[in-house]
């Protein structure tokens, strides 16, 4: 199959998936046991008069037939119009959203880079010298941190490094009411971000280690490695030039897959460190039953995972054209 046909097919599939995600989002909110208007006003301490309820129903377009509502929802979604947030009166969901987006991007981005670099390195070392202390240690480490709830690890790190030792601040994005600028401010932010990043990184290194290790072991069993060795190539060159290159391939898909998990992990970790990102925003939306906001957040999480999967597929086919035939 040609390169462009492959890209086209992948884009088409992603488009279909996007439609599915939007449909799920639409129904999440509408085909629930209680009607949306009651859901929106529940626990808000507001008792709406029947007329006001009818007006809100009309405003939300809920008195129209379902297909018409769906078309309206599609149009709104593509215009990024998700209505107004309840927690922040008078502000659109999108404007609230964009304020909380960057801290999360910074947190998840930094942690993802670190876990990939460290995880892959350990996987390569572990697979190359299988059964040595580094390998056995990494294996135990992976299993242990895999079994740990992210928020628990976050609280333990908080107790040890903030409460007991006082090395790091207990939460937030930067020191409140600080007038730091430039490098000093960046340092302050990094100081606040250290523990959240450490939590996420420790929690997900193991997956990269395991996949890299098993992929390297597969490759090391291949005939061409024996051939390379027979040619008398130095061992570290065999590893880095010949084995690792091919063994890296499966980790590309893993990066996309684990992205969803890291994003989910960020929700509770941000809660523990009161780090003002999308995760904390989601918790606030849940606590105050702001479903329009929650819906937009879920849509964002799904689309983020979808896009990262698409990118991984395309990168994979570019690095390894063989998959286009599959």
């Amino acid at each position: 199959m040609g390169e462009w046909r492959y890209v086209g097919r992948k884009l088409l599939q992603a488009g279909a998936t996007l439609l599915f995600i939007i449909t799920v989002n639409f129904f999440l909110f509408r085909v629930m046991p209680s009607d949306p208007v009651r859901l929106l006003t529940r626990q808000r301490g507001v008792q709406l008069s029947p007329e006001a309820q009818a007006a809100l129903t009309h405003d939300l377009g809920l008195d129209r037939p379902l297909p018409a509502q769906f078309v309206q929802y599609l149009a709104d979604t593509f215009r990024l119009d998700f209505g107004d947030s309840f927690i922040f009166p008078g502000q659109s969901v999108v404007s609230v959203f964009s304020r909380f987006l960057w801290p999360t991007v910074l947190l998840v981005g930094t942690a993802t880079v670190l876990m990939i670099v460290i995880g892959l390195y350990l996987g390569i070392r572990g697979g190359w010298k299988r059964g040595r202390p580094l390998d056995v240690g990494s294996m135990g480490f992976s299993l242990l941190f895999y079994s740990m709830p992210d928020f628990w690890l976050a609280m333990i790190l908080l107790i040890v490094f903030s409460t007991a030792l006082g090395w790091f601040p207990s939460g937030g994005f930067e020191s409140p009411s600080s007038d730091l600028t430039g490098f000093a401010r960046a340092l302050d932010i990094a100081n606040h971000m250290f523990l959240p990043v450490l939590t996420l990184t420790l929690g997900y290194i193991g997956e990269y280690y395991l996949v890299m290790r098993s992929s390297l072991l597969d490759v090391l069993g291949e005939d061409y490695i024996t051939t390379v060795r027979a040619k008398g190539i130095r061992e570290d060159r065999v590893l880095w030039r010949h084995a690792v290159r091919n063994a890296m391939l499966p980790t590309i898909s893993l990066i996309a897959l684990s992205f969803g998990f890291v994003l989910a992990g960020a929700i509770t970790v941000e809660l523990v460190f009161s780090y003002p990102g999308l995760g904390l925003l989601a918790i606030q939306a849940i606590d105050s039953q702001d479903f329009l906001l929650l819906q937009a957040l879920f849509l964002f999480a799904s689309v983020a995972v979808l896009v990262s999967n698409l990118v991984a597929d395309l990168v994979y086919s570019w690095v390894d054209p063989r998959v286009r035939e599959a």
Partner: protein
Amino acid sequence: MTEPDAGAGAPTPEVATRSARSVVWARRRLSARRFWATYRRSVMGIAGLVILVLFALMALLAPVLVSADSLDVTKATGPILAPPSWEYPMGTDEAGRSVLALVVWGSRVSLAIGLLAAVVSMVVGAAIGIVAGYRGGRWDSALMRFTDWFLVLPGLPLAITLAAILGQSMFIIVMVIGLTSWPWTARIVRSQALSVRERPYVERARGLGAHDLQLIAKHVLPNVFPVIFANTILSIALAILAESALSFIGLGDPLRVSWGATLELAFDAGAPTIGAWWWIGFPGACIVLVVLAFTMCGNALEEILNPRLRQR
């Protein structure tokens, strides 16, 4: 340890005198014995099993070990936020309840939700996987497309959103976790069912006029079952983690004490900043131990079922 199909073993003279059923059961006993002999050699598998048995005993014997009254905030008699001592081995919480009592009773809810959610996920995943793999063709592509769509939806955020909308009860949590975690099971079961379908004895049975349901019940299911089982053990671990996260966010059943719910209470009371490590440490360590144990058992099972992994 896939079983050979009925009648494919070497015919022995006694077969004629025994009923087909007894032959089948004898073979199953034999394969179970063989399985146990292999499993016993896995240090991880045995360690996991021992931990699980201990926790299961704790959960079952909870009413005998600690009276249910000790969970009642109004009847708590202990000192407030006391660190571990002989009287309160895991310390006390803000209301003077023994953390040990919370941990013992919490094990019931955490384990029950984990098991039930994994069963829901297994039933849905196995049904979709078997139909897709066994029917093949259009069924296969339609069901797998659907599964792939679901794979993209991030599981925990979906579960959180659903639980936030639907409200909080144990039933809703079980359903929400179960119904958001089946796609991997479906994929694994499908690939197994696909290979079983092509085996000669299935073709032979079909040739003899066996009905689809009969084939699935007699041949596909028994052959796919070991894979489903190992997968379910692994998904219990994930379900317990998911329950703890939902409870921690405040979406747990407010009427029940689970490990995650205890951690939520501790966090809300500011336990991390006042240094009440016991209130957070012990319930969390239980989650880690149980999840670790299920994962070790699941990995040990997978290694037996998948010989390619065995050399690792």
